[in-house]
């Protein structure tokens, strides 16, 4: 596959496939995300949302088709792509015995972040956790840990964020705080792909939405073309085989 024109899309997938033995998680995903755009991806459990994120962030090799991040082929330039990506998942990727500062220092070194100590303070301010900078991560609440995970994901100031159900497992208070943080990350010229089960929240965050079902994109439209009142109906319509 040839390299895309870097100026056209932040993310592009063409017939992207991923199989685990006989199990086909992605069956030919075609998707584009423009620079600065936020795409919300919905889908039932097992639709392939997490696999899509894992393939896009180069953690998993595609079985077929192609994908480009900022014009770079995910097969050919994984390290260049990793520098451009920030990934937030429901798992935090944090070491429980280390403090938030130590975790960020470790990841900052791995990403060659300049002026690392200043950057650590800056991102911890962004997630309102400066006061817990020296506490072990294992002593923080789930919501706080997820905020540190966001700080980790933006420590190298990535231009593209991939978020896989970032609000999963949070209590209502933590969810509200998380939403403010995610909104601040989403603002500006960052490209964001977020997967979620919360249709209303996805619509709120996204400029465009896509529904993934059985490893394929079965619906895709800009937010302006979607009637928010019919979102559940629309979702049911495209995922009927699983929902009903």
């Amino acid at each position, binding site marked *: 596959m040839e390299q895309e024109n870097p100026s056209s899309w932040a993310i592009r997938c063409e017939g992207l496939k991923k199989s685990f033995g006989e199990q086909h998680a992605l069956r030919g995903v075609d998707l584009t995300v423009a620079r600065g755009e936020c795409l919300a991806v919905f889908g039932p459990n097992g639709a392939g949302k997490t696999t899509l994120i894992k393939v896009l*962030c180069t953690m998993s090799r595609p079985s077929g088709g192609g994908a480009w991040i900022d014009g770079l082929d995910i097969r050919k330039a994984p390290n*260049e792509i990793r520098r451009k990506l920030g*990934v937030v998942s429901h*798992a935090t990727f944090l*070491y429980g*015995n*280390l403090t938030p500062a130590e975790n960020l220092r470790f*990841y900052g070194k*791995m990403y*060659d972040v300049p002026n690392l100590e200043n950057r650590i303070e800056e991102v911890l301010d962004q997630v309102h956790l400066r006061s817990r900078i020296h506490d072990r991560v294992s002593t923080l609440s789930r919501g706080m840990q997820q905020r540190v995970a966001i700080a980790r994901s933006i420590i190298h100031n990535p231009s593209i964020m991939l978020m896989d159900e970032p609000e999963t497992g949070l209590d209502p208070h933590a969810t509200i705080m998380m939403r403010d943080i995610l909104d601040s990350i989403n603002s500006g010229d960052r490209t964001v792909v977020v997967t979620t089960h919360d249709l209303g929240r996805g619509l709120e965050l996204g400029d465009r939405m896509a529904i993934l079902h059985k490893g394929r994109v079965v619906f895709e439209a800009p937010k302006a073309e979607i009637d928010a009142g019919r979102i559940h109906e629309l979702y049911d319509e495209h995922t009927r085989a699983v929902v009903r």
Partner: protein
Amino acid sequence: MSFATKASAILWKDVLSELRAREIVTSVLVFGLLVLVVFNFAFDPGSGTMAIVGAGILWVAFTFAGVLSLNRSFAMEKENSCIDGLMLCPVDRQVLYWGKLAGCFTFMFLVEIIITPVFLVLFNQSLWMPRLGLVVLLATVGFAAVGTLFSALAANTKARDIMLPILFLPMIVPVIIAAVEATGIVLDGGTWSDMATWLWIILAFDVIFLAVSALVFEFVLEE
């Protein structure tokens, strides 16, 4: 930052985490010392069989303590899916291998540094045995080289505590045999030339294991 700086960042993270939790060194050390004490009661330390069984006792303690240590090394990375965080870093997979290897080696060698003098005292041997130190050092390099690879592999399986020894021990047998033979020669008062062949065998395995493990680590991590 260079390859070495990033690998040392992984080592620093593992050491710091261990200093806080004391999970690996404490449990492995207690296990290793228990093995020595049990064998100390089973065999008469003063008997002439010391050179024959002593080396075996020491390497049984090292081997099983080492397996415990390796299991914990990647279990740490599985908690909170930290291994995914490592894989997202823009570094060659070899950096991850050498960083984790440095951690495994450090913890194992630290435990061996404590266990060995206890063994020498319990079995009435001289405490000054630099040749034994060399055997332990070389064999631990090979042990950690293969162990790091297989603990990464076993970490992705459901029964990792069982899978690691099943996968790892058959691979490391040549190093253990050579280490037992070389240790036996040292305990028996043999010369450098007596043990040279075994040392070369361990060294050769170290080089092969390090090169092959570093090359295939990427595939073990990714699928």
